[in-house]
């Protein structure tokens, strides 16, 4: 037994350790524990990665959600006015800018609705319109800044000839002014990169359209 005894000892630790307890098993479990810690660490990291966007995305009463919902409503009316003008206006330039506005803003509605879905929020909010804006007092009869009244919309629908052009241009001019007011409010209060990017595109587009609308107003007068 003497000679083999040494080898025995060696193997004892190797194989018998788990059965017998003592410091050696701790070592063995140490490897398992390390493996578990690595796995748990990876899982925690993964969970953190999953949760971070969830916790940092805009909430139900956020500026971003309010902007997406209210600007959808605002845009929807612009699309209606523009499609009326596209169908019925006299000046080709008016019809052309109208269809450009209609499809452009309908596209933006699509993007904003996608945000809300991504944020797992309803397209509809429980708060009154414009409450996300710090100077949200601008709502009149439920209409956001620049929106046409039901009477104005009825008048546009009934208009004939060059009158369609004139009414549309006046309504859309105010509509854009109000829209830019809302966009500015959102830009001032959000740091969401995607919202900022699109709000800036919206703003510059509407600003150059304002110039074109004003120019067409002069043309439609004559």
């Amino acid at each position: 037994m003497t000679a083999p005894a040494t080898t025995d000892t060696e193997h004892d630790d190797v194989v018998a350790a788990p059965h017998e307890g003592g410091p050696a098993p701790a070592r063995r479990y140490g490897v398992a524990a390390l493996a578990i810690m690595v796995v748990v660490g990876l899982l925690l990291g993964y969970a953190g990665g999953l949760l971070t966007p969830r916790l940092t995305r805009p909430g139900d009463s956020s500026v971003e959600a309010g902007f997406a919902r209210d600007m959808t409503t605002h845009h929807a009316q612009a699309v209606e006015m523009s499609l009326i003008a596209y169908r019925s206006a006299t000046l080709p330039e008016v019809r052309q800018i109208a269809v450009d506005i209609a499809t452009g803003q309908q596209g933006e509605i699509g993007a904003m609705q996608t945000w809300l879905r991504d944020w797992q929020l309803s397209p509809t909010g429980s708060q009154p319109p414009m409450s996300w804006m710090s100077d949200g007092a601008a709502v009149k009869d439920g209409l956001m800044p620049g929106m046409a009244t039901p009477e104005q919309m009825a008048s546009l629908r009934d208009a004939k000839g060059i009158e369609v052009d004139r009414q549309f241009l006046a309504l859309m001019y105010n509509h854009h002014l109000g829209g830019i007011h809302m966009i500015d409010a959102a830009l001032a209060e959000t740091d969401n990169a995607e919202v900022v990017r699109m709000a800036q595109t919206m703003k510059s587009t509407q600003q150059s359209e304002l110039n074109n609308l004003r120019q067409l107003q002069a043309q439609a007068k004559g």
Partner: protein
Amino acid sequence: MSISTPGGPERRPTVVSTGKKPAAGRPASGAKAGTGKPAGTPRAGGKGPRKPVTPVKVSQGRAWGPIALFVAVGVLAAGIIGYGAWASFQGSKPWDKRANAIDGIVNYRKTDPDSLKYEAHKSGPLTYKYSPPVGGVHNAAWQNCMGDVYDAPIASENAVHSLEHGAVWITYRPDLPKDQVDKLAGKVRGVEKTMLSPYEGLDKPISLQAWGYQLKVDNADDKRIDEFIKDLRVNASVEGPTALCNTGITATGTTPRDLQQQPPTQ
């Protein structure tokens, strides 16, 4: 595994040698434990004889098959993950970074942003600083850019409006061989926010325009053409991705035109 006592004494030497050989796995860690802890000795007495068996099994020479398989799978997995990471990194680069990386592209948004500024639509013929133009003031009507292939020159005053809406406008010298023109047409036809037309007086056989960007190449096979289209089509739009390319001017001719006056339908 613990019942093979009979082999005991004879096998032990083998066991010892195998215990050292495999670099990985139990024997190795066991060896460490053994040297580190003489405390193991007391336990040796009773259960010594049955232990050696396990290492003996392991000692049958390395199983190269599984090792090779694991290595192969590991390399493959690393390759896939690595390529995925690289591709997603490349793909998620902002479009303007990718565009600016195209060899020979001119970015007028940087070099001459003032040439792109304008107040409002302007009708009639206009003069442009660059040829073909890449932006700036334009007519109210845009040229249709729904993958339209024009076989005659078109009006820049309308085409620039298409660029503003995110179109890539490919122009070629009228003397470009037909097979080259056909290749360009193949890249355009059916692809919205692109259009193709000949252009008089080009200093290179082919010139590509997006709002604020230009790339001139010699050959329709040049790979940069596809890169230019991929990076700038839609992306270069000043008015967002849904600015219109339809309901525009579909006629050719370099005299700018307005849309035809239609009788009001109401």
